[in-house]
């Protein structure tokens, strides 16, 4: 059984981010793959999972989530190769430092060498980035400006919206994908959900058609109009 775990939906789930876990679990099941979707509450131990999902959240909850995760087995599990999809506040938490509650700098989990400072203004609106030649579409709503230190690869280049800094959005490593696009991004971008699934299962996936394809095409059309 392959487990997908949504981390602290009570703290990090402001933008329908629970939909990301649902989307990957359903897309796996529809291909006949074993998939179990669990969520981790505030008092729970980090369960064993192949993929962890982190969503967006408000300042206080973001700080608490970072504190709890720092003390947990999450960091060593990810260093040992567990996969992570992180959105918005989740993206910031995995980095070296981030700012919450004004300009107070806060320590992240240090899994990726990125630094998030307070942006000049909030970034709110449609976000489209080009990832390996494909459009990734979603909605962003955050106050951060994220800088990738040398050697860290961006997830994509911004076509519309702000992302990290107006040029790049998110980052990726061999087992982590991070983006400012919520939406939820994996529900809206079935191709991206499948890139993640294929990596997690280590197999080529059969194509899967669903209404999400029509939604994705429509959003791409609207964004390029």
């Amino acid at each position, binding site marked *: 059984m392959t487990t997908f775990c949504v981390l602290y939906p*009570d*703290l990090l*789930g*402001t*933008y*329908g*981010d*629970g*939909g990301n876990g*649902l*989307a990957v679990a*359903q897309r796996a099941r529809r291909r006949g793959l074993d998939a179990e979707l669990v969520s981790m*509450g*505030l*008092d729970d131990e980090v369960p064993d999972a192949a993929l962890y999902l982190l969503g967006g959240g*408000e*300042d*206080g*909850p973001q*700080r*608490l989530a970072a504190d709890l995760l720092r003390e947990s087995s999450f960091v060593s599990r990810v260093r040992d190769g567990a996969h992570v999809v992180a959105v918005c506040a989740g993206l910031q938490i995995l980095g070296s430092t981030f700012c919450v509650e004004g300009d107070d700098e806060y320590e992240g989990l240090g899994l990726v060498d990125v630094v998030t400072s307070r942006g000049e203004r*909030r970034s*709110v*609106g*449609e976000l489209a980035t080009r990832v390996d030649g494909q459009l990734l579409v979603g*909605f962003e*709503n955050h106050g951060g400006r994220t800088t990738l230190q040398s050697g860290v690869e961006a997830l994509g280049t911004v076509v519309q919206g702000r992302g990290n800094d107006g040029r790049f959005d998110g980052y990726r490593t061999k087992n982590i994908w991070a983006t400012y696009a*919520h*939406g*939820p991004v994996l*529900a*809206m971008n079935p191709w991206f959900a499948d890139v993640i699934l294929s990596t997690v299962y280590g197999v080529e996936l059969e194509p899967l058609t*669903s*209404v*999400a394809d*029509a*939604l994705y095409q*429509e959003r791409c059309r609207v964004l390029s109009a």
Partner: protein
Amino acid sequence: MGKSSSVRDQVASAAVRTVNRLSRMTGKGSGTVVGGRVGIKIAPDLVSSLARGRTVILVSGTNGKTTTTSMTVAGWGGPVTTNETGANMPAGHVAALAESKEDHVALEVDEAWLAHTLASTRPSVVVLLNLSRDQLDRANEVRHLAERWRKALEAYQDDDLVVVANANDPLVVYAGEVRANTVWCDVPTSWLADALSCPKCTLAISHVGSAWHCSCGFAKPLQVTTTLGDELVVDGTSVTLDLSMPGEFNRSNAAMALTALHSVNVNLEVAVRRVNAIQSVVGRFSVRRWRGHVLRLLLAKNPSGFAAMMATLPDDGSDVWVAINARVADGHDPSWLYDVPFEMLRGHRVYCFGDRRLDLATRLDYAEVDFVVVDNDELVPTSKETISLLANYTAFSDWLARSEP
């Protein structure tokens, strides 16, 4: 108008009425906000001057503002000045107060404008219903709103103000607890997903039955004035709430409206009969006809609203229509669809309407709910049964406009 109103205020007030009349005549709008904006331009303190000397009840919260305000108006009896088109920011308040000069005023207030409206209208009562996620691209942080409410109530210098507040919503309690004379209402509140972490210390709040508390000491108020079970009890007086409108949330709204009226000395027994008789509120819950279909129109704008509305649906596998837009008034970000427990609709077939019907259909698909994307209205099969149509804000307006009584 109050005694001390200046010439400038009178000019501004007349301008509001004139502009609104013109707006309605030219068909450019329902004519509330535009006139109000003109009035505020001429006299920035117009709301204060128009509200002076009148008994004002304010109603705010994420869900139920319009309905609760309407219940307050009905329960009060007689003529009441109100912003019944839902224009719930200062321009709408100015328009309502300039157009109608009754002594009794009931206004719904956008959550983000509560501090401002408290200061300008000097109300007798403010009703705080609930706070939950809504319109994520605009008011993105619900906890931040609770903080602003708390600060506004802390700063407000009038000990006579009665705060009628929901004791079951931790975010509302966080705001209301700063006042000495808050009247707590123990009313059923189903949506707590936005208050799982304590507004004071961010640790987890434990809910046991209808009680809740955090380890930091923050807890449900012990002294409640209003309780709602089979009977409604307000300040020791028991009455029967037998609403014509569906939904447990409407019972909670009514309980809070009646508590507000009780605190301005309206007779509870009389008021409850008036509230029980309300059939619909600005089209909400009304039964309409459209191309041979019979539809019951239900407004649901956010996850908690949807959860409450879906709980009223018959459990008979009937078709359900849902219409979703993401225009300015709805918020441009439909991510909240993933916070709606659409799994509740398994067993129904859902017809997807509105600008964002594909977002809805994708959500339903992942929720394993049977759906049909309606690209052509003419292809929807007709049925003799009354169909429930759930729609968010602008979609609801569209359906109200295109259907007939």
